[in-house]
């Protein structure tokens, strides 16, 4: 289990990195945290001739709020978002900051989180990636650069329904931009795995605002059990306007299941059940049950 030989490049700046990627369009890969890429290289499922290591590009590791938009550099490690010290200076609404920490903390395990990056995760587009779920729900913009320039894509457009991204050879995700939600939003996140600390079977993320004890705005997404994370429009519609005390029991679960079914992923009954459980938990949490 040894990787095939490759040439190693360690650019110190973004420009140099993009140049390298442009030069090695057909046989180059980006090495970010390496927690997914290196296992694949070790198994020779991936045998790049050129590896461009982004770990020395300081610009890619910044975390900032600019004009009410949270900008997360592609090389920000998952664990950074769990650490108060790194997040508290951003003056994010506390519910939102907590959500970031909870979702980051649900990734893999500590050594993996300390190394793995948000940009790498988004580029991999694994259906089990927590950041994909968050990016979809909060309409994140993905900033993609290459030697020719930069572009910005809404996450829903960035990821196709078949699980492929719009990334082309030479492209690099450099930042994720999330409009900081108002402090009114409340969140719920549930992740299910056969055992704790195991690959996720299903997860769901819900965000709501309330008015007069009723649901006003509502966004719900489910993933891991589906080929790509998806918003559940039917469930969002159903929930909007209902009292926040809405029975978190059978009704919600049934509607959740129906909403999942409507996405036509043709899930086996067990996964459909898990998806419903995750959604129900996430919604109940967001509603403060």
């Amino acid at each position, binding site marked *: 289990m040894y990787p*095939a030989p490759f040439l190693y490049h360690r650019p110190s700046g973004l420009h140099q990195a993009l140049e390298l990627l442009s030069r090695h369009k057909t046989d180059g890969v980006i090495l970010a945290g*390496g927690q997914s890429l*290196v296992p694949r290289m070790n198994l020779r499922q991936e045998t790049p*001739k050129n590896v461009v*290591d982004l770990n020395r590009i300081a610009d890619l590791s910044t975390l900032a709020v600019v004009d009410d938009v949270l900008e997360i550099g592609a090389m920000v490690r998952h664990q950074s978002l769990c650490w108060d010290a790194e997040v508290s200076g951003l003056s994010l609404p506390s519910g939102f900051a907590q959500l970031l920490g909870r979702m980051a903390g649900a990734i893999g*395990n500590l*050594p993996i989180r300390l190394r793995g990056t948000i940009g790498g995760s988004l580029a991999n587009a694994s259906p089990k990636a927590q950041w994909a779920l968050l990016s979809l729900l909060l309409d994140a913009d993905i900033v993609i650069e290459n030697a020719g320039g930069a572009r910005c894509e809404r996450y829903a457009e960035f990821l196709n329904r078949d699980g492929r991204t719009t990334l082309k050879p030479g492209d690099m995700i450099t930042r994720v931009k999330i409009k900081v939600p108002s402090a009114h939003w409340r969140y719920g996140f549930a992740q299910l795995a056969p055992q704790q600390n195991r690959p996720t079977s299903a997860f769901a993320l819900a965000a709501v605002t309330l008015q007069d004890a009723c649901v006003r705005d509502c966004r719900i997404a489910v993933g891991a059990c589906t080929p790509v994370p998806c918003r559940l429009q039917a469930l969002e519609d159903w929930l909007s306007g209902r009292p926040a005390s809405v029975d978190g029991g059978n009704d919600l679960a049934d509607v959740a299941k129906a909403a999942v079914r409507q996405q036509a992923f043709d899930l086996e009954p067990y996964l459909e059940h898990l998806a419903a459980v995750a959604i129900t938990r996430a919604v109940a949490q967001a509603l403060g049950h």
Partner: protein
Amino acid sequence: MEDTELHTVSFKLNGHVQVLQVAPRRSLTHVLDQECGMKSARVGCGQGDCGSCTVSVDGVPIRGCLLFAVQADGADIRTAEALADPAMLAAIRKAFKKHRAIQCGYCTPGFMILAEYILRNALPLDQAVQTLSANLCRCTGYSPIVSAVTELLALRAENGCGP
């Protein structure tokens, strides 16, 4: 393609500077073991799942099998042979021994690295247990390892800082 391209890498290993010529594809674990003689650097799975290869890189536990040695250029690396704080190392060894946290010993260095991180950051017990869940052990049934770390955390709390 052969490994014709070698890179000069220099890092601090257990407080001593090492300068090595490495091919890019050599993992940090491989180099620590084969070139630097660190017998605690061990591969268990090569996939980041088991944690037998865990070493401390710039003060945090990292999977050595998922880091190319060339990436460690300039890093401060600690292995279970010589953790940064000798008193803490001695305390960890003592607690592991006392609580029967070792059987075959293959996973032990990786767990010692995690234990050191837990102690240095004084993690609460539930987080400590979660953190220890990063690594696999197939002999002890874990609860002796948890007992050892629990005692170390209690000692640390008693003494204010560092056991």
